[in-house]
Every structure is written in structure tokens, then in C-alpha cells.
């Protein structure tokens, strides 16, 4: 049995008096596609930022591929990558220039082939010589996804990976991510507000509320446990009523 991809223990983050993450524990298996769900302010972004080493936890431990992230994140970061619609790339550079810079940052010397392949796979080859600032929101999402896959990461953190995409492009991206995962065995951790997407793509779901994990399981398990019809209803029940449906079921 292989080590889990991520083991988080007793993770906390306080910003002064504000508690963003309040004692979170979870494990994500290698090769899983896990969704981190929760309403705005639930603590998802802070959790992901801590997993990326961008935010230092107040307490707790993060182990990625068996390495202690807090002790030495630089042993792990080359094996990871992320995309988020809320973190931009330099606007004045072309897509090709941006991806070339990031290829070097991830130690890829001959980036040309990688760029061509990703360009074709994510349908951005026609955008490579356009300035990043001239792209639509959906095009930017696909470019940051290409950046997230440049180093063929074993762990990809995806913040709303299909935000701003039309249904056709969103479906293509989901299919590509699934194909990438099957080919590489990578672990995907994503946040999304699209519950249909979560049901289709994710093998594991972690639901957060007010900085804590309130439930977890496969989408099917959660829907059954709450006695509801869809993940959307589960999400709404937890966000609005703190999971009353489950208590009534239970």
C-alpha cells in the first residue's frame, strides 16, 4: 500500500482574533480526486494556501508524499502545482512567455515540446502569442490550467478549475483532467461551487464550515447520508442549516 498523497493533522490558522481554519484533519489517497467544499469563508482557500506553502499554519502538520511540508516545502513544491482564477499571471507577457518562465521555474529546460502538447490538449495553441491581458476570462482559466500542468505534477491543486468556462469548454477541461489523472496517477484536490462537476469528477469530498470539517465521504455516500437527491442539496443544507437533513435522517 502506498503512502497517502496528503496527510493533514490538527491544522489551524488564526489571523489575529479571526480563526480561518480550526483544527482540520484529513487524508487524501494518491490518485484520488478530492473536492474541498464549503460556503465562502469556510476556510477552503486558507487550507489550500497552507498546502501550497503560501500561508504558514498557526498549528498542525502537513505531510505531502511523506515529506513534512512545513519543515522543507522545497522538496515537495517541484512535485506540485496549482491554478486559481484569483491568482493572475503577468498581463504584459504573452501566454508563451508566461509559460516559458514557469517552465524554467519548475526546472524544465526544453519547454517547447511541453508547450506545444499542452497548447493542443487545452486548445490554447492559438493563444500562445497573445498577451495574457487580451484573453477572455475563460481563456485565462485554460492558460493557468496549462501552467498548473507544465511540470506534470503528482499533486494538482485546482481552485475552481472550470470557473468562467462555458459548458463545452468546462466539459473538455474536466475530460482532460480525468485523462491526465489516469495517465499520470496524479492526485487532484479541487475547490468548486459546481456540485454537478463534483458529483461527476470527485471520488472523495471534504466539506468545511466555519473553519472546520463537518463531513466527508464519496458524493454518493453524502447524498445517501443526508437523504437528499443531489450534492447541491447537501451543500445547501450544510451551508444554511448546518446539516439538519442528516440529523433528521439519522
Amino acid at each position: 500500500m502506498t503512502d497517502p498523497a496528503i496527510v493533514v493533522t490538527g491544522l489551524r490558522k488564526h489571523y489575529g482574533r479571526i480563526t480561518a481554519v480550526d483544527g482540520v484533519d484529513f487524508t487524501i489517497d494518491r490518485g484520488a480526486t478530492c473536492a474541498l467544499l464549503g460556503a465562502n469563508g469556510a476556510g477552503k482557500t486558507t487550507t489550500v494556501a497552507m498546502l501550497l506553502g503560501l500561508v504558514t499554519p498557526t498549528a498542525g502538520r502537513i505531510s505531502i508524499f511523506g515529506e513534512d511540508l512545513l519543515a522543507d516545502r522545497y522538496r515537495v513544491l517541484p512535485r506540485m502545482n496549482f491554478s486559481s482564477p484569483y491568482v493572475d499571471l503577468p498581463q504584459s507577457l504573452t501566454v508563451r512567455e508566461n509559460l516559458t518562465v514557469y517552465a524554467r521555474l519548475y526546472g524544465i529546460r526544453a519547454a517547447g515540446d511541453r508547450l506545444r502538447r499542452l497548447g493542443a490538449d487545452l486548445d490554447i495553441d492559438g493563444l500562445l502569442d497573445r498577451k495574457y491581458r487580451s484573453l477572455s476570462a475563460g481563456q485565462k482559466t485554460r492558460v493557468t490550467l496549462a501552467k498548473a500542468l507544465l511540470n506534470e505534477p503528482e499533486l494538482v491543486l485546482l481552485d475552481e478549475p472550470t470557473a468562467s468556462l462555458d459548458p463545452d469548454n468546462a466539459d473538455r477541461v474536466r475530460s482532460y483532467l480525468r485523462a491526465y489523472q489516469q495517465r499520470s496517477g496524479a492526485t487532484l484536490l479541487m475547490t468548486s461551487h459546481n456540485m454537478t462537476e463534483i458529483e461527476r469528477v470527485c471520488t472523495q469530498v471534504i466539506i468545511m464550515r466555519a473553519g472546520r470539517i463537518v463531513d466527508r465521504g464519496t458524493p454518493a455516500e453524502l447524498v445517501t447520508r443526508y437523504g437528499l437527491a443531489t450534492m447541491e442539496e447537501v451543500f445547501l443544507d450544510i451551508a444554511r442549516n448546518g446539516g439538519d437533513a442528516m440529523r433528521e435522517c439519522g
Partner: protein
Amino acid sequence: MRAAGSLALSWLRVSAIVLRYLYLLRGSWPRIVELAYWPTVQMVLWGLVTKFFATHSDWVAQAAGVLIAAVLLWDVLFRSQLGVSVVFMEEMYARNLGHLFASPLRPRELVAALLLVSVLRTMIGVLPAALLAIPLYRYSIFDMGLPLLAYFTVLLMFGWAIGLVICAALLRYGLGVESLAWASIFALAPVSGIYYPVATLPEWLQPVAWALPSSHVFEGMRAVLIEGRFDPGLLAGGVGLTLGYLGLSAAVFLRTFNVARERGLLLQSGE
């Protein structure tokens, strides 16, 4: 062996950040023009002042190029400081710090790249003005010889030190303090003795001046140009102070980077 514990740099990652800036310059000719514009305007202005004073001031007449040399060396300090802080601001404007520091890029590699870009920006800014002074005013700063190289290096490094402290302030307080990048160095101008000897300053201010490497450089420059002698004591003072300030400012920047990670500031790098 733990790479993070050592001081090793990946030159591939450093070159990535330098390349990012070269792409930025290549795609924006106004940025290149802006780099050379102010040093050239300053040089032309002080060249004209020199021409006037050469016939009205015994002091300037002793060494006609002293004011032009002073303004060019001052621009080395100014440009090298901007070369660090403005390039860092570009990353903040681009809201790119999250991507950068989720990559294997270490903060010290970013610092190394900023310093290299600063050398490039300073050369692009000051070299055309220095060359233009030769046909315009028949003054070549390069006649100063080896001391020029030493003064250039001290001012470049002092500019880095100031630039890194400004970067730390930007990281900690956001782009709200960007005006510091432009304005802070002018606070040093009156006490650096750029155009006049440190002895001109009020007595109580002179110790402040001697605590700055720039004062040592400008005094040394006048010794070379007016008295025709190189003062190794002034250079040694400038080098020692610069190295001290540079070490201190690098420590401040790296410490502030850790504070930024504690406070989640790397993801909130906009205005």
C-alpha cells in the same frame, strides 16, 4: 542533504525571473525609453549648470566635470534602487506572487534576480547619458578610471540595500506604500553631499552623512576630480557601510517574507 538549509541558488530559476523581466522590456518600448530618459535629462541640465558655473565659480572651474560626474553617479544609486523595487512592484501589480512562491522559487533566488535586473536597468539608464555627455560637454566620466568602477559598485549595492527595504515595506503594507519607492531616496540626497562637500552641512548633520556610503563615494569622487588623488579610506568606508546595509536589508526582506507567509499577504498583493 537538505537544499533549503544551504544558501545554494538555482540559476535556472534566477534566470527565469530575469527572463520574465526581459520579456517585459522587449514588449514595451516606453519602459526602455523611460529608463534612459531621466538620467539623460538630468545630465543635460547639470551640464548646462556646469557651463554657467565654469565661468562664474572658481570651485567648479577647478574640475569642469564634477557636477556631471555627480549627477551620473547619483543616478546609479537612484536607478539601482528603482531597479529592485519597481521590478518587485511589477509582480505585485500582476498579482503573480502566489504563482511564484507556490513554485520551487526561493525568496533568495527572487532577490538574486532582482539584483541582476537592477544592474541591467541601471546600465540602460545611465550609460546613454554618460556617453552623450562626451560630445555635448566634452566630459567623459570614464576618464576617472578604476575609481569610477569602485564608486559605481558601491552605489549600485547601496541602491540594492534601499530597494530591498522598500520591497519589504511593499510586501508588508501593500502597494499603498509604492510612492516610497520613488520618494524615499530623495531624503538621502541632501545628506549625501552629491554636489557639495559634507563639510557644507550643519555640524549636527555631518555624522548622519558619514553613516551613508553615498557620502563617502561623492567625497572620494571630488578628491579624484578636484585634487587628483584617490582616497582609499573613503572607498573602504563606503564599501564597509554598503556591505553592512546590504546584509541588513537582505535580512529584513527575508524576515518580512516570513511575516507575509504568516499573515497570508502573498495572496493579497494588489492595492
